[in-house]
């Protein structure tokens, strides 16, 4: 039986995945690689092609060109076998409002074929046990989202795909879901793909990050490397921009200036900032403001896309 334990390096691997809607290209040449046991954060602004990509991973949409391999198998040929081991929550949760939470899960259970006790298990996991026999019609947005996550977990998937899973949840719900997602690879050996348009959301759970912009994957690496990109910088608003820049240069601190704004981006530790302020004061340059600026995801995108153009 040695053949069956071939270790698959990537749980999800797409090659030049492309999707066009008429003339519009939604996803272009996407090469996504998700290693086993990772929590893959799929980041991008709204309309960047995240959901389209996820729909192609689930076989809901057919790629215009390129291929999708999940668990090392071609999605085109082995779709049903692959989907047996995948759980998903795409965009807004889908449910049958006239049925109860339990009945919704039961309808799904009949198809995926796990045992009935699993329904109570997933309801427990997402904290919906008390509402199991209420019609979903009366659920709040957060409860519906929890039900969506319960549905995704029902078949004990090896790959869990969650599209914006914290939508509509209150802060404590967000923390619960975050902790749940974090525990999945450890406890159940799951690989997780989680998409979001918020960097803050992704950076707290993901171990690997893929950033998509205008249909292209412009970045794919570990979360540590992304953190280096998203380093904050310190801005000084001063009386004389250029003089400040010179004086800091003399003090051995590299900055950029624009008008009366001098920005410090490479070293932003406390000691350097203190040195910089001292240098400015000594050179009799008035300091009006010292502000910390964390670069937003949009700015990182911008930087990354411009970099891409330069290459």
């Amino acid at each position, binding site marked *: 039986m040695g053949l069956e334990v071939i270790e698959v390096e990537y749980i999800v691997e797409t090659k030049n995945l492309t999707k066009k809607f008429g003339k519009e290209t939604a996803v272009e040449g996407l090469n996504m690689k998700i290693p086993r046991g990772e929590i893959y954060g799929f980041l991008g602004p709204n309309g960047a092609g995240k959901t389209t990509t996820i*729909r192609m991973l*689930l*076989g*809901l*949409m*057919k790629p215009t060109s390129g291929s999708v391999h999940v668990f090392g198998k071609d999605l085109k040929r082995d779709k*049903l*076998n692959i*989907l*047996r081991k*995948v759980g*998903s929550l*795409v*965009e*807004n*949760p*889908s*449910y*049958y*409002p*006239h*049925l109860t939470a339990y*009945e919704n899960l*039961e*309808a*799904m259970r*009949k*198809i*995926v*074929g796990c045992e009935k006790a699993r329904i109570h298990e997933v309801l427990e996991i997402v904290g919906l046990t008390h509402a199991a026999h209420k019609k979903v019609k009366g659920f709040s947005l957060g409860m519906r989202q929890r039900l969506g996550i319960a*549905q995704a977990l029902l078949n004990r998937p090896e790959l869990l795909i969650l599209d914006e899973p914290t939508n509509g949840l209150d802060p404590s719900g967000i923390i619960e879901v975050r902790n749940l997602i974090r525990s999945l690879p450890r406890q159940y050996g799951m690989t997780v793909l989680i998409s979001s348009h918020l960097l803050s959301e992704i950076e707290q759970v993901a171990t690997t990050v893929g950033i998509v912009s205008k249909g292209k994957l412009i970045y794919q690496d570990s979360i540590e490397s992304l953190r280096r990109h998203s380093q904050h910088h310190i801005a000084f608003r001063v009386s004389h921009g250029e003089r400040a820049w010179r004086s800091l240069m003399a003090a051995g601190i590299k900055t950029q200036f624009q008008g009366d704004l001098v920005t410090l981006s490479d070293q932003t530790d406390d000691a350097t900032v203190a040195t910089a302020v001292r240098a400015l004061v000594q050179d009799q340059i008035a300091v009006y403001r010292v502000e910390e600026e964390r670069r937003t995801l949009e700015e990182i995108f911008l930087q990354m896309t411009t970099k891409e153009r330069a290459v």
Partner: protein
Amino acid sequence: MMGKLLRVELMKIRRKGFWFLTFLGPIGVVALQVVNYSVRWDYLRTLSDDHWLFYLENVSGFTPLALVLGIAILTSFMASIENETNAWKQLLALPVRKTSVYLAKFTVLSGLLFLASVLLCLATLVYGLTLDFGGGVPIIELLEYSFYPFFAALPILALQLWVAMVSENQGWPITVGVLNVILTYSAFSLPDWAFWKWPTLLNSWEEPMYSGLMGLGVGLVIYMVGMMDFVRRDVK
């Protein structure tokens, strides 16, 4: 897989009024004759010698319209189960074939319509027996008038299901449903090839069975085309 999907579909039509409508249709059709015969039985008696056959013709005057109305309403209910919260993406991301999902929907709908035909047959028989027509019950004609319209209406069901399953805008199935009802209503002035005429069982050969057979054949063809189109499309 079909067995599982059918059980799931039956579960999903709970509390949606499907069963109510399935009973309402045939009982409504016979109820119209209850009114008709209780008000003017003395007059109707003079119109024909074969009272049973005349009664069956009266009943079947309303069958096509009830059937086509039922198809429009049940089909749009059926598609709304998934369309309401766009549960297609949820359902079709499970290990199921799209062809099986389509077949399960069609099977449940035609099953309900067939059940309605059975009820029509029983209700027609029971009320007919209370009227004391004399002579034996024309069983063959009773079965023909009860079940041929079901087969003859299959093209309409297949067309309606196709439109409902692939339309993002639910205005389309409603439009098609209204057109189906209008065309069935004006069946008498339609040519033989128009399938809206078939549920009336009228054709130039004067053989009701032909209407049923054509319905079955053409219904299967439209079903296949609709299913292939559903499979080909990306999920909404």
